[in-house]
């Protein structure tokens, strides 16, 4: 009977140690995942900042003007019923 109790207590002690180690390891994994998450969030935020700036139509317009692009001053609509050129 005593032997059984000692074995049981020993098993419980071993199980407790294993669980404690496992819990500590999982805690470390969690901490690592959280750090990774923070890094990704930071990167994501930086990418969003870049996207916000890059998709600004006002900036695009400035770049286009600096590149010498200009808006057409006159729009000509062609009537499809009237040929612009024909063969004789």
């Amino acid at each position, binding site marked *: 009977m005593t032997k059984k109790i000692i074995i049981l207590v020993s098993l419980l002690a071993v199980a407790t140690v294993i669980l404690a180690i496992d*819990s500590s390891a999982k805690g470390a994994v969690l901490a690592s995942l959280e750090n990774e998450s923070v890094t990704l969030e930071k990167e994501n*935020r930086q990418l*969003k900042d870049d996207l916000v700036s890059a*998709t600004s139509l*006002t900036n695009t317009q400035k770049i286009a003007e600096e590149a010498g692009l200009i808006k057409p001053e006159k729009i000509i609509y062609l009537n499809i019923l009237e040929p612009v050129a024909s063969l004789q």
Partner: protein
Amino acid sequence: MRGRIKLLGFAFLISSAALIVRLFFWQIIKSQELANWARLQQTSGRQLQAPRGNILASDGGFLAATTQGWLVYASKSDVVSDAKTLANKLAPFFVDDPSLLLAEVARVQDLLSENGSVWIPLKHRVEDETKSTIEAMNLAGIGFEPEDLRSYPEASIAAQVLGFVGKDDEGLDKGYFGVEGYYDLELSGKEGFLQRESDARGIPILSGTSREISAVGGVDLLTHLDKTIQLIAEKKLTDGIEKYGAKSGWVVVMNPKTGAIVAMAAWPSYDPAEYWTFGNDYFKNPVISDSFEPGSIFKPLVMASALDAGAVEPDTKCDICGGPAKIDKYSIETWNKEYRPDSTMTDVIVHSDNVGMVFVGNRLGADRLYDYLSKFGIGQMTGIDLQGEANPGIREKGTWNIVDLATASFGQGIAVTPIQMIRAIGVIANDGVIMEPQVVDKIALDGWQSDIKPLAGERVISKKAADEITAMMVLAASEGEAKWTAIGGFGVAGKTGTAQIPVKGHYDEDKTIGSFVGFAPANDPKFVMLVSLTEPQSSPWASETAAPLWFSIANELFVYLGIQPKS
């Protein structure tokens, strides 16, 4: 030997007793205190950020976004330089305008010289780039804390529509004016909190206690605003203000079938990212907050009402149009003092004949006019989803005298906001049915999206009456006083309006508000647009200021919206 064993046993006994006593002291008597100390060491808590939602244009592009900003602070105990040296080094990064540099140096120096302060916030909302530059200088005692930065990538574009984010009484972010103000609660979200036990290395103890309140981010708002049209409207308005020497002005473009506001520009404007550098007068959106006497752009509403009521037909002849109309002690004249006896109702609109409109008003009667104007939404809030809408109201039914009826018939003595005006003209463009103007189209959060459906109101006039007044407005645009600037072939239905500005009970002789309101193509309108310029200097007449500006914007809209000319 036996004595030694006894002595050793006794020593063990004493030691054990001492150990038990000591353990009793720490485990029982001091247990609560130690547990508290342990909790303080092991338990840590932190805020879970809930960034403010973005405001997006109809194409998903950013109009307002929450980006990463920084608070620059000084930890007084770690600072080694003197306050003046440090202020001279930091201040240039805190101001854009070199003329403000000296004042900024003084401000930072004052802050750093404060006695009794340990942690001193020096500058809020500093951008990433600036932070990196300051960091590279390795200034001892200068640190950074992350904070949200509200960014408006299109600068002052649609500023009065968007509003801005300031602080409330408790120092928390709060939206003011426009979309930021109207949807502040939805955009704000709610911060969360995480508290749990960790070991000495900061690794969470999973078996320990933890408490987490999840953060709920602010929703994104997808608006109807079309960036391209908005930019066209802003650019043309600024050019128009300069060209015609106007004091201020506005442009509103709406889809008449849905009530969607696709562009809303006003000048003068401001940069919402730096709202504090502008006066309060800039923040108000004149399109929804300011009222004005509409003048002749009001005539289509009165004529449409009379057509719908059967009071007149398009070819009904005006039998008082041969000269000025005498109303009480007043004489009502035409704008150019030219009179056309027996003008038809179409002529009255085409030539913007005030006397003809008095004739129409008399046929309709004050009570019926009041009822129709109410159905057109005049004197009522439009319900637009922007903070700051005003309603000038109209005289109560039954209190209108003959002068009120006569002047209201041609848009004088009655006040409207620009948004009320464009919604009312939108009724004509939408076959007689009123729509509620709407800025936000969809609300989105983490893949979930909710569509805000267009809000259709009641039928105001019959389709027949809408078609008749549209035909009149097409002729008014192509044959009226603004015909010189009209673009042919697109079927524009429009009307000019030059209104005098009431000042202290009388009308100012020189100051006017010139407007042009219209829609195109007349048979299947893709947009309805209102353009107004206040106090133009080059000419008091709308036909020479607001009308050419309207057509220059429309010219670009035709290309952008793929509207082809009929001929």
